């Protein structure tokens, strides 16, 4: 028994040390220091909730939270609609289904930073030229207003991640027994009825997975934000993750940035836990 215990700890020690030093200790450290005047190296005094009060009064931070929420809601809806549609297409018995899966999934393998730069070119130069060709004034100057910057980010993220969500839906769609669909066809159910009564309920668990994934992915976006709009114009498209990085490493306000980081954690954790709870409950009800 004792021997077994020894091996248990030997096997676990590398990851416990790593998780401890990289995640657990900084997390606790950060939480404590967010109540002080910490400058990244030393703290001289506790100042209570001062940072937390200030950040709720800071217009830029509240804007970034509001912008991130709007972005996440729109992106989650689009991602799941696109993901499911793409999955429904490539799970049909068409010749190009493997090729299409490869194509739709490809953007996921490339980092958000690089994709953001590519789309900066698309939105600025390609949109500009197409706009000239069609005489559309509205296609000029994308990414230079808050509105178009927002949609630019939404389009980039939906394009990048829809293939990933597609993969999740494919896994569930392919588990639907073929004879169930066949039987419904024989009984004369239309394609829409089949989708509503068979496919949709059976892929419902996929919503648990993908809503949770997409919402937290969307909320934590940084690279795409940096390379596509760089937060501009006037920081109006700056999302929370970027706002925290800037406060810490450009403005050098470590403790204040850490207070924002704690709030960020609370929001992400609440989203994740609510999603899991809500979806698990709905699955059981079904």
């Amino acid at each position, binding site marked *: 028994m004792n021997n*077994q215990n020894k091996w248990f700890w030997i*096997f*676990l020690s*590398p*990851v416990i040390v790593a*998780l401890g*030093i*990289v*995640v*657990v200790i*900084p*997390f606790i*450290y*950060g939480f404590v220091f967010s109540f002080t005047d910490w400058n*990244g190296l030393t703290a001289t005094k506790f100042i209570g909730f001062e940072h937390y009060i200030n950040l709720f009064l800071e217009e830029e931070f509240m804007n970034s939270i509001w912008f991130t929420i709007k972005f996440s809601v729109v992106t989650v809806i689009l991602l799941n609609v696109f993901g499911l549609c*793409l999955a429904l*297409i*490539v799970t*049909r018995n*068409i*010749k*190009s*289904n493997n090729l*299409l899966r*490869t194509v*739709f*999934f*490809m953007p*996921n*393998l490339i*980092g*958000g930073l*690089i994709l953001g*730069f*590519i789309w900066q*070119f*698309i939105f600025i*130069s390609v949109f500009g*030229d197409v706009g000239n*060709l069609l005489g559309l004034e509205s296609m000029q100057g994308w990414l230079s207003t808050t509105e178009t910057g927002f949609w630019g980010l939404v389009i980039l993220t939906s*394009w990048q991640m829809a293939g990933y969500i597609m*993969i*999740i839906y*494919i*896994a569930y769609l392919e588990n639907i027994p073929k004879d169930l669909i066949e039987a419904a066809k024989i009984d004369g159910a239309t394609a829409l009825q089949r989708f509503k009564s068979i496919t949709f309920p059976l892929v419902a668990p996929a919503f648990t*997975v993908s809503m949770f994934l997409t919402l937290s992915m969307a909320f*934590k976006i940084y*690279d795409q934000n940096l390379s596509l709009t760089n937060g501009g114009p006037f920081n109006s498209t700056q999302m*929370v*993750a970027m706002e*925290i990085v800037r406060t810490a*490493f450009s403005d050098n306000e*470590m403790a204040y*940035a*850490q207070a924002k*980081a704690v709030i*960020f*954690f609370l929001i*992400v*954790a609440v989203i994740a836990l609510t999603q899991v709870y809500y979806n698990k409950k709905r699955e059981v009800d079904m």
Partner: protein
Amino acid sequence: MKMNKESKNLFSVEVLGLVLGLIWIAPFYLMIVNAFKTKREIFAGVLGLPQSLALENFVKAFNDLEFLKSLFNSLLITGVSVAIIILFSAMAGYALARNKSKLSGIIFFVFVAAMLIPFQSVMIPLVSIFGQADLLNAAGLIFMYLGFGCSLSIFLYHGAMTGIPKSLDEAAIIDGANRLQLFWYIIFPLLKPISVTVGILNVIWIWNDYLLPSLVLGEANATIPLKMFFFFGEYTKQWHLALAGLTLAIIPVIIFYFFAQKQIIKGVSEGAVK
């Protein structure tokens, strides 16, 4: 008659799929086509084909990105990080799955719960601690990747262990193997399918990571995304060079995808669904 309608249906699905497919790769097409143009040609229009292939864009981007050096840095950091994540997470997943004590359950829960913590929430103290320990370098970065990558990996290995019967352990122990031998020669090879999944998920994430390397590494030993960031900043509005650089930067990923496509899609699917 009925068959006919169905194949017609299928045909329209196929056409729809192909149109969407073209839209999906259009950004890459536009990137590559314009990477071969001169500055003047891009200014004249981005939609047409290049008149001649301006290969000098690629030569300049290759040199300015210090492409071979950045590629080597990316390969080294990703390779070592993923190797130790696989090894140590498999060991931990095995130990946690075999030990049914309450403590073991609590440790497992801590690892899973750590997945809730976004990077930005630990980033500032992390950089501060590693800075004071003089570990803001490649070695420190690899250790950080172990810390951030082990949670999901342990979770996946833990799940895979349920498929490996405990009688194997007992038989090996009776034959005189110690735990380390038992793990290395029997358990670890049986976990190979999940190791492929764990490896792929971590490669995709670490290879493309920008923020952590930007805080830890200097420009001298930058990875591809980090170097790309500096490069892009240097050539804003010089799209012919920027696009050539971007094309170079995604070539390694495309090669990887070409050779491991099946495993990648399978791995991502398993990682997401579990």
